[in-house]
């Protein structure tokens, strides 16, 4: 058993709401952001108090920092934030944030916590400002693709109608994403700009086509395609349009993920008779097994050489199956369980690899979950009843 001691790295912080009318959503997002950052320890409560002055309630003087905020919504949401030293009330930082779109209120809080984290010189948490893009089923052969903030407090439909699946961010700035369209006779990989709505076709394939990963520079993508009826992994250059077949197996090879810039990928294959995780160099033929645990490991994500995979730990044809997530390395070494209950799938790393996003099913409800791999803190946010098809962050 590995015991991780990390508490001393976190700052004890208290949150004071100085708004005329308290907003429960704003409060909850503040607490969630501070927690999942991995850099702060709050008491899990937002205190009501004065915004403008330097007064710190005696009961909170034992903290290191005080965040005071005031939220109003006159012509769009506005958030004013001050960061004080708890010991003497001296101000370290203040800033005012405003948006015209009330629905995007969560991004104000995320940006404020991002700023507080940066002011205190903690490692960057830029992922907290990012969009999550996901597809969900609405009816047989029908789906929609949406954007959300990481808490799913904000959601917006980007593509409604038709059957559109497997959204994957195309660029680090999150201006466009790839997705699979079923509008034609064979599946097509499209790219859409979320601000202009302009679409372009990237590739198509009989059987299936999915964009599984995008290289760091955005110049190459890993595809799962089946031009001859067998799912294999291909690498496509977006500059030349050329495709290189990476795997050659008369079975299932899917979900290729770049192992950093090593020229290698990990992927899911049933070449041993069950779904498991393997790796290979893009330019050579040798394939090696990465995971030596479990008998049904059907999803993987990678950040550098670190991998996270989901493992099916019951084999019940009648439902109620248990999936758990495990953290490991593509180069061997220890494997760390990340979840222990429910059905946990769709693991996705944050851009810095420090957070794992996943979807948890427990009973009849589903949630989006986050695990901070350094602090081991986790969060769950409930999702609506519709089934998530795929997700990217």
């Amino acid at each position, binding site marked *: 058993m590995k015991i991780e001691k990390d508490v001393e790295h976190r700052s004890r912080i208290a949150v004071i709401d100085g708004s005329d009318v308290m907003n429960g959503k704003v409060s909850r997002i503040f607490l969630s952001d501070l927690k999942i950052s991995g850099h702060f320890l709050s008491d899990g409560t937002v205190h009501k108090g004065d915004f*403008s002055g330097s007064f710190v309630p005696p009961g909170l003087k034992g903290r290191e920092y005080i965040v005071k905020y005031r939220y109003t919504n006159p012509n769009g949401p506005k958030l004013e934030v*001050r960061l004080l030293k708890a010991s003497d009330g001296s*101000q*370290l*930082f*203040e*800033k*005012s*944030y405003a*948006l*015209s*779109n009330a629905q*995007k209120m969560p*991004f104000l809080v995320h*940006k404020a916590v991002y*700023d507080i984290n940066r*002011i205190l010189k903690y490692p960057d948490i*830029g992922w907290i400002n990012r969009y999550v893009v996901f597809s969900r*089923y609405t009816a*047989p*052969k029908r789906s929609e693709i949406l954007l959300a903030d990481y808490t799913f407090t904000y959601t*917006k439909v*980007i*593509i*409604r*109608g*038709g*059957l559109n*699946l*497997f959204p994957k961010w195309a660029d680090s*700035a999150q201006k466009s994403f790839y997705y699979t369209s079923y*509008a034609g*006779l*064979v*599946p097509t990989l499209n790219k*859409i700009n*979320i*601000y202009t709505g302009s679409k372009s076709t990237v590739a198509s394939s*009989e*059987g*299936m086509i*999915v964009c599984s990963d995008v290289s760091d520079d955005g110049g190459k993508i890993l595809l*799962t395609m*089946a031009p001859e*009826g*067998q799912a294999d992994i291909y690498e496509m250059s977006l500059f030349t349009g050329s495709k290189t077949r990476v795997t050659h197996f008369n079975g*299932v090879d*899917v*979900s290729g993920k770049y192992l950093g810039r090593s020229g290698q990928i990990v992927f*899911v294959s049933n070449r041993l008779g069950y779904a498991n995780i393997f790796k290979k160099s893009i330019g050579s033929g040798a394939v090696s097994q990465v995971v030596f645990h479990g008998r049904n490991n059907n*999803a993987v994500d990678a950040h550098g050489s670190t991998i996270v995979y989901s493992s099916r730990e019951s084999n019940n*044809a*009648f*439902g109620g*199956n248990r999936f758990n997530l495990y953290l490991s390395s593509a180069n061997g070494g220890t494997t760390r369980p990340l979840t222990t209950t429910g059905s946990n*799938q*769709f693991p996705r790393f944050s851009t810095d690899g420090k957070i794992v996003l996943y979807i948890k099913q427990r009973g009849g409800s589903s949630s989006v979950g986050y695990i901070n791999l350094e602090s081991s803190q986790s969060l769950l946010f409930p999702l609506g009843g519709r*089934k998530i*098809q*795929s997700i990217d962050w």
Partner: protein
Amino acid sequence: MVIRQKGSDVIKQTVWTAITLTAFFFSGCGQTAPTLDGTKGKNNFTDATEISGDTVTVNESGEGGGLGNSSADGFRSVYFDFGDYSISGTMQSKVSADAARAAQTSGKIKIEGNCDEFGTDEYNYALGLKRAKAVKDAMAAEGVQNGRMVIISYGESNPVCSSPTDSCYARNRRVDLRLAR
């Protein structure tokens, strides 16, 4: 849509210039610390991180993907065991009937692979694809030209029923056939 710091008119003007260029930005360029209620701030910083402009919603309701969640045009669906993509002995007669039906038709035949709801991600779509490929190969063995058949996987996206029973799940582990339109 802008997130802006309170500050001087210079800051605001710069922000609106940024708007005209890019539609949205986190503002920034405050060389002096912004203030709130007359209290001087410290340690503020220039910040130009884009957050989000006005995103679009694209409606694709008019585009059809071959609706219908069972076989059509006189073809019969082929069913599979849990996690399996081999054609069982009892299903071979359905394949034979479909091959006979194919001989009575012209044009392309769409062969759609489907899975139950327990798989997720790409692997489940690949499993549906293996089922469609198995039916295509079996049809070819019975004389249907390969060039007439197009396979496609719908993964778990196209269930015929959703009740939590084994018989329902079994009905979703299937391959549907229809004429391509």
